[in-house]
């Protein structure tokens, strides 16, 4: 559905080089890698916020640079790490902004848009927060509201940049459950950049491993998430094993790898 074709990007002292990936419709792809490996840049390229220096990002074969922001936003939504509005918008106002690409320049949202927003609030368990001021919410509540706002765009594809990075264990689990449901029950295609190997193992059907701006490996989660790959990606010796209770692979870091493969 969305693919990157030999994409390169130079950004001051840092590069993304020759990255090719393919996100099939209905998949849940995790993008893993150490700090500064280019996860955020890759997501920004795939949402069209940044333009590649070489190569193309294609949405069903069409370069996204040729698609207007409005049309693109009807199909692809993004959840950034953190969102800091400059004014005290209410949760409902934040969520309704997701309708922007569906409204004309002078149109105001009507009952149908309101219904979509309410449904997104319900799906993210934030309906009771509708009249609260966004900035007064807790980290987990904020992140769920931003996901609701992205869902209000009615996207086919949702790109998330470390949505659980600043959250405690309880909220992390809530977000994980929500994302799993979105993928399974609503058929939303998801791309998740994360540091959390166990989160990726529990949710993702496919993984892309990025190291120093290049693809180290990509493929099905079960094939890619191995002791060897974790060592090559992070320079860490880890136990990778299927956890029968959790029902997915788990990664337990043991020690720094000798020789520092990084």
């Amino acid at each position: 559905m969305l693919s990157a074709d030999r994409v390169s990007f130079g950004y001051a002292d840092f590069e993304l080089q020759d990255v090719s990936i393919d996100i099939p419709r209905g998949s849940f792809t995790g993008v893993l890698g150490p700090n500064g490996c280019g996860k955020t840049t890759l997501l920004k390229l795939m949402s069209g916020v940044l333009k590649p220096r070489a190569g193309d990002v294609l949405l069903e074969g069409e370069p996204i640079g040729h698609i207007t922001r409005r049309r693109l936003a009807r199909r692809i939504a993004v959840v950034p790490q953190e969102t800091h509005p400059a004014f005290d918008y209410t949760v409902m106002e934040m969520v309704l902004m997701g309708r922007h690409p569906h409204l004309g320049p002078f149109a105001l949202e009507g009952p149908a848009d309101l219904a979509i927003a309410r449904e997104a609030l319900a799906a993210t368990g934030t309906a009771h927060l509708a009249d609260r001021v966004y900035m007064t919410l807790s980290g987990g509540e904020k992140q769920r509201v931003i996901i609701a706002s992205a869902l209000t765009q009615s996207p086919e594809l949702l790109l998330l940049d470390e949505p659980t990075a600043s959250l405690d264990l309880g909220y992390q689990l809530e977000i994980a459950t929500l994302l799993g449901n979105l993928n399974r029950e609503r058929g939303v295609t998801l791309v998740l950049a994360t540091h959390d190997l166990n989160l990726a193992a529990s949710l993702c059907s496919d993984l892309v491993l990025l190291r120093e701006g290049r693809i180290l490996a990509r493929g099905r989660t079960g094939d890619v998430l191995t002791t060897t790959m974790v060592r090559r990606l992070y320079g860490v010796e880890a136990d990778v094993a299927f956890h029968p209770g959790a029902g997915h692979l788990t990664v337990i870091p043991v020690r720094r790898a000798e020789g520092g493969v990084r």
Partner: protein
Amino acid sequence: MNAGTTAAQNAAVAAARPARQSIRARLALTVTGFGALLVATCVLAPLVGSTPLSLVRVFDRTVPFADNVDAQIFFIARLPRVFAAALVGATLASAGVVLQALLRNPLATPFTLGVSAGAALGAILAITFGSAVTLGPFSPVPLASFAGALIAVAIVYTLASAPGRALSTSVLLLAGVTLNSFFSALILFVQYMADFTEAYRAVRWLMGDLDIGAFGPIVATLPLAIVSFGMFALLPSSLNLLSVGGDVAATRGVDVLRAQRLAFLSASLATSAAVSLAGPIGFIGIVVPHLVRLLVGVDHRVVLPASALFGASFLVVCDVVARTVMAPLEVPVGIVTALIGGPFFLWLLVRRG
């Protein structure tokens, strides 16, 4: 004038609270409320002054205009001033709203960018040296002021925009601060070079002065103001998203660069229209949007029209105070707005800190 304004104020307050009403209902209520307030202030403000007027006598059709002193004072002496105040208040308040969203900073004002300082420099040059220049029916002052504003905008914009990238807020703010100091130094230099009478006129103009005495200057500024309001009308939903964040705005379907340029240009046009008409009147762009947000919430689709209407009423009332507080002396209205706006700004700073 209390009864009329209180009723209008109540209507405005009823529009208050983001509440659960739809955006359409909120917008309709807000525009009606603040619109009624503006009509009330514009009709009642000319009645106040050194010669008290009666509304009945002003509109008494049985007396010919030539013999109706009340009507003459109302329409010729006071109404131009009220309209000028309304126009300046509306443009400065709207420009404040737009710049605050654009810079993602609720403390930004049209003056933060150095646009008003540029406009002021142009006007001061014209006031000091321009008496020899004649441009047909046009006074050189507004034209020079507009030219100064445009130069300031061009400099700030060039400094702040790297090709293909979004405007950097901190660069924009610092460029504005630097330009303000630079233009202020030039203004002081021009005053130093000028003779005493010219320097006095310049100082008086710099205080912010609505005593324009005719409809001509208002009509001359109107095209500029109309163009800027036309551009403002395209902006509100983009401003909502820009104030949440540039990347968020882009991924929600906003053409960020285009929206930023439109916002920057329209705010600059509006500011130079106001400055060329009445001098650099300060603090309207910060006091009015903040009061409006307290009343109607922060959605720019409501805040922008409400600020334009309330900004107009606000400056009309400030000017009534300026005309009456030390009567028969008239205090420049810029001093009144600064005395209200200065403490208000500090209070906002403390509250945010």
